[in-house]
């Protein structure tokens, strides 16, 4: 049956290249605190949109509740600022119903990993083609500063005045354990890198998860400085590039080598060490991805940034459409008459 939606979709849509970043900036004040990391994430996202080749009216941003939840108001596309933790199932329903749309979810460490944790792992597993930007500031900000599932043990917050007792999730490891296909990490201080990650997430068919370190100036200021500040990050992070060796450091003079399963840092300028000892990244290797994920909270290893895993698997909404198509091909489109009649009926004259 041709539906009204089909009618709407058949109407001509704007061309692919006619936008600029400005077209995606609605005429409203950005109400995040001055200096909030979220503001820095907004602009690469706005800059990316014109490059997607997707008509503006086919882009949807969905968020939950938290400071991050404000995002859709600042992106002039369709948007849904939903309830706490539920952005993902809303996005899943939308994408399954409307595979023609480009669906983005903006969420927080609390929204996505605390109340929304179940939807998150199921979304990873199902592989609906949604792109998730998780603003991880390691704190609940909108509620004014409680520890979150990514806060570290001992973190002093309003609800942990003597230090939090929880160990954090490792969001990347959790996503991998839930069999997410695309898993990446970026941060608010390098917009170009971030834009690239968002672009890759969009290109990836299926569920894409990007953990974005986002500084909260008010309730957890500086939590990521070591990994994000221009002067320290080259020594404290390693940028992952598919099929490239894991080298890092200001002078690219350090590398990661595997000792058994254990990553260790080697000094490439030291005698006997060479670039060929260095671990080469492979986005398609899910064991490697887990090793990289486990580097996250290490105190001696650099923190991996970039695309940790990027596997191909059919997306859920594709499968839904395929199953319908095949069934219709096999048995013909259903007639309402026969549906209503069911297995057996009788006539009264």
């Amino acid at each position, binding site marked *: 049956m041709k539906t009204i939606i089909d009618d*709407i979709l058949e109407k001509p849509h704007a061309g692919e290249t006619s936008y600029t970043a400005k077209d995606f900036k609605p005429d409203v004040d950005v109400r995040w605190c001055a200096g909030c990391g979220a503001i820095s994430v907004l602009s690469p996202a706005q800059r990316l949109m014109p490059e997607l080749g997707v008509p503006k009216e086919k882009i949807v941003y969905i968020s939950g509740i938290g400071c991050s939840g404000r995002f*859709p108001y600042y992106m002039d596309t369709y948007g849904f600022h939903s309830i706490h933790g539920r952005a993902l199932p809303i996005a899943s329903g939308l994408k399954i119903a*409307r595979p023609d749309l480009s669906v983005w979810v903006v969420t927080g460490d609390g929204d996505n990993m605390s109340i929304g944790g179940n939807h998150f792992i199921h979304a990873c597993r199902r592989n609906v083609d949604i792109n998730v930007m998780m603003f991880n500031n390691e704190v609940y900000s909108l509620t004014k500063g409680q520890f979150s599932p990514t806060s570290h043990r001992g973190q002093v917050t309003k609800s942990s005045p003597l230090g939090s007792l929880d160990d954090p999730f490792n969001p990347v490891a959790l996503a991998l354990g839930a069999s997410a296909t695309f898993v990446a990490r970026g941060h608010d201080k390098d917009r170009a890198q971030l834009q690239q990650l968002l672009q890759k997430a969009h290109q990836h068919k299926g569920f894409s998860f990007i953990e974005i370190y986002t500084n909260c100036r008010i309730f957890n200021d500086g939590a990521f400085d070591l990994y994000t500040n221009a002067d320290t990050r080259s020594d404290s992070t390693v940028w992952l590039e598919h099929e490239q060796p894991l080298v890092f450091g200001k002078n690219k003079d350090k590398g990661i080598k595997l000792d058994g399963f254990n990553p260790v840092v080697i000094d490439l300028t030291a005698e006997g060490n060479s670039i060929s000892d260095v671990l080469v990244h492979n986005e398609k290797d899910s064991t490697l991805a887990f090793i990289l994920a486990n580097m996250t909270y290490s105190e001696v290893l650099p923190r991996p940034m970039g695309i940790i895993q990027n596997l191909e698997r059919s997306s859920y909404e594709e499968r839904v459409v395929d199953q319908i198509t095949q*069934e219709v091909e096999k048995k013909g489109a*259903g007639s309402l008459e026969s549906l*209503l009649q069911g297995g057996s009926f009788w*006539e009264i004259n």
Partner: protein
Amino acid sequence: MEKFKEHVEDVTVRFAGDSGDGMQLVGTQFSDSSGFAGNEVNTFPDFPSEIRAPEGTLYGVSAFQVHFGTRNINTTGDFVDVLVAMNAASLKVNLANVRTHGIIIVNTEGFDERSLKLAGYAKNPLEDGSLNNYQLVLIDMGKELKKAFIELDIPSKLIQRTKNIFALGVTYWLFHRPLEPTVSWINKKFKDKEDVILANVHSLQAGWNFAEKNPDFKTQYLIDRSNLPPGKYRSITGNQAVALGLVVAATKARLPLFLGSYPITPATDILHAISGYKRYGVKHLQAEDEIAGITSALGAAFGGSLAVTTTSGPGLSLKSEAIGLAIMTELPLIIVDVMRAGPSTGLPTKTEQSDLMIAMYGRHGEAPMPVLAAASSSDCFDMTMEAARIALKYMTPVMLLTDGYIGQASEPWRIPDVATLPDIAPHFAEDAKTFKPYARNPETLGRMWAIPGLQGMEHRIGGLEKEDGSGIVSHDPINHQKMVEIRQRKVDGIANDIPELEVIGPAEGDILLLSWGSTYGAVRTAVGKLKEKGHIVSYAHLRYLNPFPKNLGDVLHRFERVVIPELNTGQLKNLIQAKYLKPVIGINKVQGKPFKSVELEEKIEVLLSMENIKKWSSKKVDIPVDL
């Protein structure tokens, strides 16, 4: 031996046996062939809450009841006229409800020592005279089948598996039911398994033949055809009817259908049905929980689908927060609650009408939404269509209440001609230039539906309070008050768009019986009986619980006393008293079971004779005593 023939108006047959005895199957067959024979039918499957309880236990008994007759078959029958009992436990569990002098057909094989013990019989009831008040027919079905198959070369294991069909054959003779529908069902079901077909068809015939020859069966009962409007009929459960109603509503609205759901008894059958409708382009997500079920549907609604979520009590509780979001975002969404006995896990396989209050009020904040309730299995189809119409026209979530009883009970349904059903018109935004997300149709107060893909209408919605018109987030005090009132008025206004309440019987007088939901059948039957006895009772049935039909207040105040029978402790009573300040006498039952019409009949007769309290409603202070 010559048999008597006797015409009867209506009969209730109950097939009972162990979970493995195939009682649901023969019950369904009996019901279908009674429909085929042109009778009104009403049936109820009654299976144990255990998946497959140990053989022969009391809690492992599975039964299927068929009530059929020429007219006024609105319930599954108060008392059983014919009980088929395949073992001791099934006799024990079901005897209490068999009418005195009723027929009990027993498979004596199920009364060995072990079975008697499991059923808790100290003595064999078939032998101790305790069944003297019934017409007992003892059959060793195993032996009879052996005899009947003596000339056929069929494995005895296969033969023994057709005992239920043999019993069915016996009842077919007893009520002169046609064999064809069952024979053709057997042929279809066991296609290509000739042995099995032969065994079953032969067994069915053998049962018929046995009854015809057996001297214990003295009378064959004949039931006249009902005076049903001509058309195609099928038997349908409420859950099936909801599933069909959804597909038809989507077609009539020219929208894709999306179901987001999580399995829960007794609503899961709707999900099962929908999951088989791929040929109709229907999409569904079996979600990770009820919250994902409803929110995925809400996402699909945002995208322009006719979106639905189905559940029962515990699941409904979990959906509370998301329903609030649907109300705030004013998106169309159908929530089907197949009520079961609560609270908490309660009696999950039993029926109740105890979710009316949560349907009305189960959300934080001022969060009104329309609530409808289906009256019978087939009415589930119509009310589903209504739910869709209202959701799309008024841009609102709609709650449709059915229950475990009508969800699983079946009755014949006259298959509608789809072409003649009215179209449903969703209200999409049209003009990007004048578009405002919260601009409203002045008549319905519904906002326009602007779905992704519509050019130039990009906008943001969400759970925060909105400015009237623009839909921009607003913390303005006066605006909030206004929006709260608009949301309320929108729902209240639906009263102008639904049928007025129809009173059957005198339009004013002493007693009005008011029912809602699945009690319809029992109340209607009781009213019929009371009328036959010469009582004057008016009767009305509510399908719309929020808003109420706009003449409800008038109707109520035209009667001295209003009586509401409900399968809860008085939830509709509560709503009516709060809104109309009209005292209500409640007849309440919370036993996981539907009313018997006779229970109602008796209670109403008590009321009719209570001259002394007849005038109580004029006493200002008193609260009416419930019955």
